[in-house]
């Protein structure tokens, strides 16, 4: 809401001014709110608030500001995102992102984390594509599902490692939106109960998850055999 009155409150006015610093000089839209940053502007902005491109905080900002694609911010997203947090200066922004970053594994923060994770898919996907290339997906999973973000691992099982191994050696295809989103749901379940006793073939999991469960069980069986051998010796 409030898009047409982007510069209404004092916050919004100063945010709009701040945005002008990073905005693409070429971007001239009928609605001022549709104006965007270019890659240089975005990089500069991220640098100014201490966000590394290979760090999970990149996804935090992108979601908060509803970045439509990699390296692009809109004036509307910029103003709405920050004013919703009551923030309008670069140092405050930096602190806010740091605070969110430290909250990522916290179960109470989970709804926001889910939004960040989900937003990563449209963000990372190439223009006009429905799916995400596997190589990219692998990189993003590494960032989003390991510390300082939510760690997809349990005392017995390094799920993320197994998952990445599985998708690269067995699955080997591009990742669609459903698979991307179901992966997080599945990861959460694994964290609740690593035995995966809750899984059954009749449930709504995508086929790829079913295959992965099979894969994990195979690995576990082998692992147990090894453990047995060691006991004997």
């Amino acid at each position, binding site marked *: 809401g409030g898009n047409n009155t982007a510069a209404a409150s004092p916050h919004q006015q100063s945010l709009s001014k701040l945005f002008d610093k990073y905005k693409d000089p070429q971007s001239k839209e009928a609605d001022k709110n549709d104006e965007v940053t270019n890659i240089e502007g975005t990089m500069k902005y991220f640098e100014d608030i201490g966000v590394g491109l290979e760090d999970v905080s990149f996804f935090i900002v992108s979601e908060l500001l509803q970045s439509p694609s990699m390296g692009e911010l809109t004036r509307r997203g910029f103003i709405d995102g920050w004013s919703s947090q009551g923030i309008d200066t670069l140092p405050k922004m930096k602190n806010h992102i740091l605070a969110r970053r430290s909250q990522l594994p916290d179960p109470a923060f989970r709804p926001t984390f889910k939004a960040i994770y989900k937003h990563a898919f449209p963000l990372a996907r190439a223009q006009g594509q*429905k*799916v995400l290339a596997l190589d990219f997906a692998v990189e993003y999973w590494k960032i989003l599902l390991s510390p300082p973000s939510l760690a997809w691992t349990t005392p017995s099982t390094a799920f993320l490692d197994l998952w990445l191994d599985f998708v690269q050696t067995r699955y080997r295809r591009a990742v*669609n*939106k*459903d*698979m991307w*989103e*179901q992966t997080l749901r599945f990861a959460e379940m694994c964290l609740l109960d690593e035995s995966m006793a809750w899984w059954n*073939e*009749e*449930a*709504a*999991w*995508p*086929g*790829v998850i*079913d295959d992965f469960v099979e894969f994990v069980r195979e690995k576990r069986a082998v692992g147990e055999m090894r453990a047995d051998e060691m006991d004997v010796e």
Partner: protein
Amino acid sequence: MTSTTTNRTAMGTTLPPKDDIQATWKFLEGGVETIMNSLRDGVDLKTYMMLYTAIHNFCTAQKAVGHGGTGLQSLNGGSHRGAHLLGEDLYKRLQKYLKDHLKKSHDQLAKHSDEAQLRYYIEEWHRFTTAGGYIQHLFKYLNRHWVKREIDEGKKDVYDIYTLHLVSWKVGMFEASGNTVMKAVLRLVEKLRNGETIEMSQIKTVLDSFVALGIDEADTTKTTLDVYRQHFEAPYVQATREYYTQESQAFLAENSVVEYMKKAERRLQEEKDRVGLFLISEITLPLMKACEDVLIKDHCAILRDEFQTRLNDDRREDMKRMYALLARIPDGLDPLRNRFEVHVRKAGMAAIDKLLEGGENVEPKPYVDALLAVHSNYADLVQKSFNGESEFVRSLDNACRDYVNRNAVCKQSNSRSPELLAKHADILLKKSTKSTEEDDMEKTQTEIMTIFKYIEDKDVFNKFYSQMLAKRLVLGTSVSEDAETNMIGKLKDASGFEYTNKLQRMLQDMQTSKDLNSTYSDWRNENLEESDRKAAVDASYSILGTGFWPLMPASTGFVPPQDIVRTYERFQNFYTTKHQGRKLTWLWHLSKGEIRANYVKLNRVPYTFQLSTYQMAILLLFNDSISVSYDDIAAATELDKRTLDPSLGVIVRAKILNAHPEGASTESGTSYSLNMGFKHKKVKVNLNVNIKAEQKQEAEETHKAIEADRVMVIQAVIVRIMKSRKTMKHNQLVAETIPQLKNRFQPKVSDIKKCIDTLLEKEYLERLEGDELGYLA
């Protein structure tokens, strides 16, 4: 007894004063006594009439109210009912009389025991109830007035005179001794069961007396079966139960189960027959239930164990007997059906295991025959031993479905059964040296359908069948159109129009092509010069509708020989003027022809070579030169190596062409020349033979095509369901998808899930909260 005569004399003279109860009863008592004790001596009409009149007079005597009542009157509290009170006097006195009479009878009864007592009870019962009939008549006036009025006013314990007899009997005889009499009855029945002769009518009389005593208190003119049930039926059934419990245990300890079954069968029949002889139909249900309980149910474990043995030894008579016995008890047959099902399944699996002992490569006919043999053996057993009962048929079907689809041969590949069955049908429907009699054709087709019914992957059968049908039709190897039509008709009956639609269209295309060829021939006669016609290649064409035929253009390139090009172009012109806008694609890999070899002869007759069009193109090159190199052949025909090599190979092996250098393989550098000294024992030489490698590749492609079809079908079903339901739980969608696919193939849950994934990706579906899926239009 001695007083009878006296009384008779006394009453014969004059009627008593009508308002004197003492005198009246005294007068009547003599008559009643006579009827009761010496009815057989007879009562003369006059006496009878006087008795009747005395009662009438007494009842109609108009006495003033409150006028000098008798003791009885005052006892009954009041005199407001005038004349009717007099009726009561009579009634009470008769009642007392009956009671006293029965007291004496019962004293006598008690002196007897067992059969003598039974006899006495029956005699007395007859005498008493017969007398009751007469006395009822004698007291008709009392019945009609006083008794009727009392009953109408709701007075209990007042009965019409005959019923009064019954009630009195019940109190005086039955209540004291009914059960001991019944014991005598039961001993009699036991004797009968032990094979002795008894007087069955005695039992019947006791039963009838018990029924008669069941007076309905709500309406005393009627009877209920309560007394009978409690005092006859219950002990009778109980005794039966005890008798057969004991007998069956003793018998089984000494005899075989089969002998026991015969015995039980006989016993059940006897008991049933006895109902008609001396019991009433009401007893049938509880009695037979008791018999079945102790004769069958209590021994059903032994019977069932025996069933397995009988089944193993194929003892059909015994199984029939066992079926008949166990069918009589609730759920008696379920364990039999289960054992039968397991047995048939094992037999089916074993038959195929045995077949495989002869080698991994199973031929269609022995395979189908083995499947059939097991089925027909046990189908026959179901008819003969299990009365063709539908539940056993179902067990048979379950077992057959299992061994047809999951035997050792199917372990090689899931689709082996439908594939082999289709091949079996192909062999049947293909022209062969052995001609099939019409009856055999029908019989074998019916057998194919028997197995077809059990095939789960019907889509696989259809795919192979349609491919082989296409070959038969295009290559002209079908045994007859009738046989083809008949078989397709059977498949249609079993699986519906859609299943056979394409097959029928293929037959139609062949008919249409036949007509077209004759039209074309007419056209040629009208439009071509005679010389032209003679020079032309004699050809026939099959026009096959794209989409109905499981045929694809060959992957290899091909340049047909010039003679053939001229021939088909002429046809093409004719065809496209007739059907504008249609495009013809020639399926060269399925075309064939004959050429005459004028350079080599058998007894002055030139040889005829039957060839594929590819081979024809190769061989015709030798019209222009004696020797042609491999590379030139390849260049001229444009056939790829995979096609050229086997086609050429067959010609070389037949020694029509010689390879140079001799024995060289089909490859660049080899050259070929005509063998001018070619010899063969027949004039016609068939070189158009199927190539093994080709067949194998075809089968693989067929399997791939089936897989692809399945994905399409599953997706279509999912979309159809979701379109009508809009949103649905994931597992519910899977559950509803499965039955819709079952008549085509056995879908795997994982396959359905993969299709859902694909539809999610294609955005036909979306994932909603809580495992729900939504349809996106």
